[in-house]
């Protein structure tokens, strides 16, 4: 009991010192932290979104729709290759269903001639051609995985660009599972607006309006009907436009909100070189006709071409407000999402509630500590004081652990902290009760202390182990705030074992050696 090797003492003091160093940055205001020398650890406990306010959004990417669109384009490609080449091929039942493109060649003798064309159209697919002319093509599992991964990757890229443009600081955007994306936006003021921006696909295309077609009639196969957004009272509700777009948003290099002559907010855009050339040609050929700008399936404007537009820049006007023009410009700059996104989970906490939670948590924590400290002093006197020193060190070490691991402190995490402090003194209670018992059995102070620590240690380990097990599963399965609770409890169990067993033991042994008491004040 009295003997502590120099080595052990150094380790114990070292851990305490490290604890203080790593937890100290949490007390320094963040603006001063940056000016400290480089060797000082600067990582502080990051607060969860439930404490600092912000949005947690879980998106699901519509991979099915994306793959169907891809298969549709394969179908179109096959149709073109089989009918528009030098040799024409007859076929039946060309279509895509259940992730498979299929068709039947009318003349099995044409199989060999059709094979290279089909191969071209289905490059990364598994192509099967039967001797009866039945053709199927589908993606291999590996390709599907790769396509999905790319899709998520691209979506994340676009989301990041959009969020960055809104000036939100330190967003977290990561893939989760097969087809999900987590977006975390700390401190965001207007979550609905950002949600709006992220959720828009923002696929923009330029189409010629087919003036000859009857609006009421069935559109020609090369045409499609498109709805007009915000139709003017005297204008058309829908227009018939050519299916094949002249150009798409991909050809844009820049877009900005600006004002028209009349002071109306508009979006000014610039094409890249290819886009400018194509747009120049198209407008030169179609002076006097209308073209439509379609955004996510809706026509936002369909102006008449007055002159050839050769400079590669133009404006979109369409009853915008300044805000909606800014938003559209932002979306065009960031690019279109490759697939549709849906919010499947949202947790938004306002900064006020977060601040209230921090206040409430602090208060509960302080009151709990005061209650425990006073109770330990009353119940165990001098040794209660030692246990209280350990308790405070424990709190410091928990913060050091959270900081060093870069863990997040959530509101349930604060609850975990309070709980840990309550349970941490259990180890000291176990030891001290045991010591009292040994004293009653007539042992001397030193041997009673020795027995107390020796006998209680196994029990303390067992009791803590059960906590660790329950908490580990909570950590593994829990989400955000609950993970915060679990990590605080986990760190707390480890640090409290250290402080309430080793630290108190060291302090007690130092005191025993100095004071050499005949009776323990217990």
């Amino acid at each position, binding site marked *: 009991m009295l003997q502590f090797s120099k080595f052990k003492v150094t380790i114990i003091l070292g851990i305490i010192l490290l604890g203080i160093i790593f937890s100290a940055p949490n007390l320094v205001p963040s603006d001063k932290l940056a000016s400290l020398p480089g060797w000082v650890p600067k990582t502080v406990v990051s607060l969860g979104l439930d404490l600092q306010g912000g949005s947690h959004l879980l998106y699901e990417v519509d991979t099915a729709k994306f793959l169907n669109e891809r298969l549709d384009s394969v179908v179109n490609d096959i149709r073109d290759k089989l009918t528009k080449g030098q040799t024409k091929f007859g076929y039946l039942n060309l279509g895509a269903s259940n992730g498979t493109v299929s068709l039947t060649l009318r003349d099995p003798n044409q199989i060999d001639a059709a094979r290279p064309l089909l191969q071209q159209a289905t490059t990364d697919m598994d192509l099967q051609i039967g001797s009866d002319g039945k053709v199927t093509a589908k993606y291999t599992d590996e390709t599907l995985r790769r396509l999905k991964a790319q899709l998520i990757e691209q979506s994340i890229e676009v989301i990041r660009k959009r969020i960055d443009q809104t000036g939100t600081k330190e967003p977290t955007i990561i893939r989760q599972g097969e087809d999900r994306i987590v977006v975390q936006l700390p401190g965001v003021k207007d979550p609905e607006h950002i949600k709006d921006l992220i959720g828009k696909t923002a696929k923009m295309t330029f189409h010629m309006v087919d003036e000859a077609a009857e609006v009421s009639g069935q559109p020609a196969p090369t045409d499609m009907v498109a709805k007009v957004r915000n139709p003017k009272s005297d204008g058309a509700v829908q227009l018939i436009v050519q299916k094949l777009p002249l150009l798409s948003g991909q050809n844009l290099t820049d877009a900005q909100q600006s004002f028209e002559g009349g002071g109306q907010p508009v979006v000014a855009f610039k094409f890249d070189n290819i886009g400018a050339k194509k747009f120049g040609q198209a407008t030169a050929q179609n002076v006097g006709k209308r073209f439509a700008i379609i955004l996510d399936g809706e026509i936002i404007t369909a102006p008449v071409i007055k002159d050839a537009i050769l400079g590669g820049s133009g404006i979109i006007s369409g009853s915008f407000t300044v805000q909606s023009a800014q938003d559209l410009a932002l979306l065009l700059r960031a690019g279109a999402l490759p697939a549709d996104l849906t*919010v499947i989970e949202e947790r938004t906490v306002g900064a006020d509630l977060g601040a209230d939670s921090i206040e*409430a948590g602090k208060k509960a924590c302080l009151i709990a500590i005061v209650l425990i400290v006073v*109770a330990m002093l009353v119940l165990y*006197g001098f040794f*209660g004081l030692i246990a209280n020193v350990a308790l405070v060190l424990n709190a410091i070490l928990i913060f050091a652990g959270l900081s060093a691991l870069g863990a997040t402190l959530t509101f349930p995490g604060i609850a975990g902290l309070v709980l840990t402090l309550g349970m941490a003194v259990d180890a000291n209670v176990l030891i001290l*009760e045991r010591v009292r018992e040994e004293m009653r059995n007539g042992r001397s102070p030193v041997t009673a202390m020795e027995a107390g620590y020796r006998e209680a240690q196994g029990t303390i380990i*067992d*009791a803590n182990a059960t906590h660790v097990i329950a908490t580990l*599963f909570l950590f593994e*399965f829990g989400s955000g705030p609950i993970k915060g609770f679990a990590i605080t409890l986990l760190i707390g169990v480890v640090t409290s074992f250290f402080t309430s067993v080793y630290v108190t033991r060291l302090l007690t042994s130092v005191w025993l050696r100095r004071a050499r008491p005949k009776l323990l004040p217990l």
Partner: protein
Amino acid sequence: MYKPFHLVPANTRFDFMRFHKPAFLLSVIMVIGSIVLIFTKGLNYGIDFAGGVLMEVQSKQEQVVDLGALRGKLDGLEIGEITLQTFGAENTVLIRIPQQPGGDQATQQAVAKLKATLGDQWDYRRTETVGPKVGEELKSSAVWASLLAILGIMGYVWFRYEWQFGINAVLALIHDCVTTVGLFALTGMEFNLTTVAAVLTIAGYSVNDTVVIYDRIRYDMRRYKTMAIKDLINLALNSTLSRTTVTSGLTLLSVLALALFGGEVIRGFSIAMIWGIVIGTYSTICVAAPLLIYMHLHRIRGKEPTDPKSKGDTAAQQGA
């Protein structure tokens, strides 16, 4: 130097075992009652599990919100049955909207509609939406976490103690967890992810408490080889009584601080923990320890050195 105050006097001789039969009866009634309540009345699942929308809004102007008027304003929205409830302060309202039949997109539209109707007279303190798929996933992961945690604890107790102890500790643990969930069914308090965290923490606490007594019983078994098992249990309970009181008391104090000052958001968690600490302490003393007399502990005692067979037999007779 200050001579500390002894909360529980030394050498108490309570006959805990005298009450073990009525305690068993009470526990059986509580567990069965809880299960019946869980299956008949059901749990008031929060949006974590049931899906839907939860919004906490605070009026910017009124000091006291007129819920009737607010309901009148929101009833025309056709977004299912809206529940309103003041939350903490008189000017703060918790709005719940059920899962929308149209799926996730419809849920987002419902939120947008609600916000448009409420306008900017309100501070949006909290908005949580959980879609049907996520709700199901959260439910299944909560069930898995609970099952695996209980199995894990069972495994540990099994490994560290003889199987009789293991079974009893787990029975006590299940007793504590089931009655906690039962409490939520009885009171209709919202059952959500935080509640599951509380239940798992209670599981850890329950076994923690049991393990301390069991350690003591094992220790006393080695010391008093011929003492009747009933007396052994009484002895162990009495000699750890001071520790049990102090630890439970201190943990209870800190959880009370949470319940009283920790705010509305984690009130459910705090209340669950208060119950858990009380029931965990009770189940250790009145369930886990007394159950040992029904287990054939002679095998364990038989492991002691010197003529294991005969010793074991006498112990069994005394214990019976």
